[in-house]
């Protein structure tokens, strides 16, 4: 038998099995440092409940077209959770893995380090889904905020919006050299998304330009609001907004894949 044949003889384990094994470890690591889970899943609801503790914010007001402030603000709380997980947490984890040589070590095995990124994406998307579910259900049960009026459109907007955030987060993660740099850039992105999303000033007080930006910057907070409140009609450009989020996702993901530095 030639050396080459012997060298090539052992095969590679199937990718799904490898992904399962990496995912199992990454999930345990994620749960061992539960800060992101707590902040990302519980904090949006807690902040919304905090707002609701102020009586004036529970009164319907003509300023919000007869809605209560908390009804108006619930989508912002939703975006807060999505953003913490997709834009803050994801680049920090990947930046740390790059800085500490975790990705580099993986690249010396028969397995491509991209498996680790896929595992992280699964964890991040699952956490975002959980965060959204907790917020919508808790708002409905505790604060009597209506469930999304257009559930299908809301779900589609949530999925595309989350994807656009995660792709942007991945683009940051692709290029930052360290965890520290990841935190810096991610915080900037986070502030922009949350400014547009109405965290610092409710969106009805924002200047027109920021309100318009909310239609077209990730995660598309305007469409989430419209779908939640059922304010979608043929004059709303929701198909355009969905297409923009999908486009941002594809572009950011492609750029991330192209620019990604493994060390």
């Amino acid at each position, binding site marked *: 038998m*030639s*050396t*080459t044949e*012997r*060298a*090539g003889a*052992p*095969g*590679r*384990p199937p990718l799904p*099995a*490898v992904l399962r*094994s*990496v995912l199992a*470890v990454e999930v*345990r*690591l994620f749960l*061992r*440092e539960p800060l992101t889970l707590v902040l990302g899943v519980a904090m949006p609801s807690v902040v919304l409940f905090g707002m609701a503790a102020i009586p004036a914010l529970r009164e319907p007001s003509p300023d919000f077209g007869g809605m209560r402030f908390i009804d108006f603000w619930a989508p912002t709380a939703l975006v807060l959770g999505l953003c913490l997980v997709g834009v803050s947490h994801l680049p920090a984890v990947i930046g*740390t*893995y790059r800085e*500490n*040589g*975790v990705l*580099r*070590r993986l*690249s*010396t*095995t*028969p*397995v491509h380090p991209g498996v680790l990124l896929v595992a992280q994406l699964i964890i991040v998307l699952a956490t975002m889904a959980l965060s959204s579910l907790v917020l919508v259900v808790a708002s409905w049960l505790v604060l009597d905020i209506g469930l999304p009026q257009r559930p299908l459109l809301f779900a589609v907007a949530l999925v595309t919006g989350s994807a656009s955030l995660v792709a942007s987060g991945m683009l940051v993660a692709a290029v930052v050299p360290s965890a520290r740099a990841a935190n810096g850039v991610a915080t900037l992105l986070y502030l922009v998304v949350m400014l547009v999303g109405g965290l610092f000033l409710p969106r009805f007080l924002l200047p027109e330009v920021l309100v318009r930006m909310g239609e077209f910057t990730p995660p598309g907070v305007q469409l989430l609001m419209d779908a939640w409140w059922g304010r979608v009609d043929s004059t709303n450009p929701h198909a355009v907004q969905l297409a923009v989020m999908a486009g941002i996702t594809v572009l950011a993901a492609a750029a991330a894949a192209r620019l990604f530095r493994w060390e």
Partner: protein
Amino acid sequence: MAIIEVANLRKRYGEKVAVEDVSFSVDEGEIFGVLGPNGAGKTTTVECVSGVREPDRGRLRVLGLDPSTDRTRLRRVLGIQLQEARLPDRIRVVEALRMYASFHQHPADVGELLSMLDITDRAGAQYRTLSGGQQQRLSIALALVGRPRVAVLDELTTGLDPRARRETWKLVERVRDSGVTIVLVSHFMDEAERLCDRVAVVDRGRVAALDTPERLVARASHERGGGRATLEDAFVSLTGGGDLL
């Protein structure tokens, strides 16, 4: 029989030449040392051999495979322990080993590996709680879990205390005795003298000497004109520090 062949390897990073012209071969079952001062091109050389970096020029063969084109197959037969590659802080020793084992079709037994590396009692410990020596031993274990025929160990004992270094040396000998060919990168001469069958002294991107440690020492003693030299003396003289002797 040569298991690794390197001929006229050259690698630059931009303007900087890391490896100018390096040639050597490693026989099956050897512990082969790659020695040299900091920045001599040791790590770049073994990274090219391991398929982690693409050489600019030169002919490389590891078990008959070309590291640049047969990368996937090479990774199944060559394990590498990289300098300064950490693991996630909270991963447990046994989790890391099992995960890396799952990357191979016929991995080593995780329990056996733990006991060979003498970290069985730390199997459930998180990476951040391990001592430097234990982290290095885990790192070696991860390089060996795929049952490689060649293991590349880079700056294995840098930063370890004398006792941990000696334990690690014993381990390297045990690994070789199990039939693995070892390429050891080091800048410690006592380590090379103790472990290596042959060494290549690399200086400024070129091989300054290629011989057994004993013969390098004998030559240095002769040049000195009496009195037994050490491998360190030979090294200093070979790497352009003759005036320091």
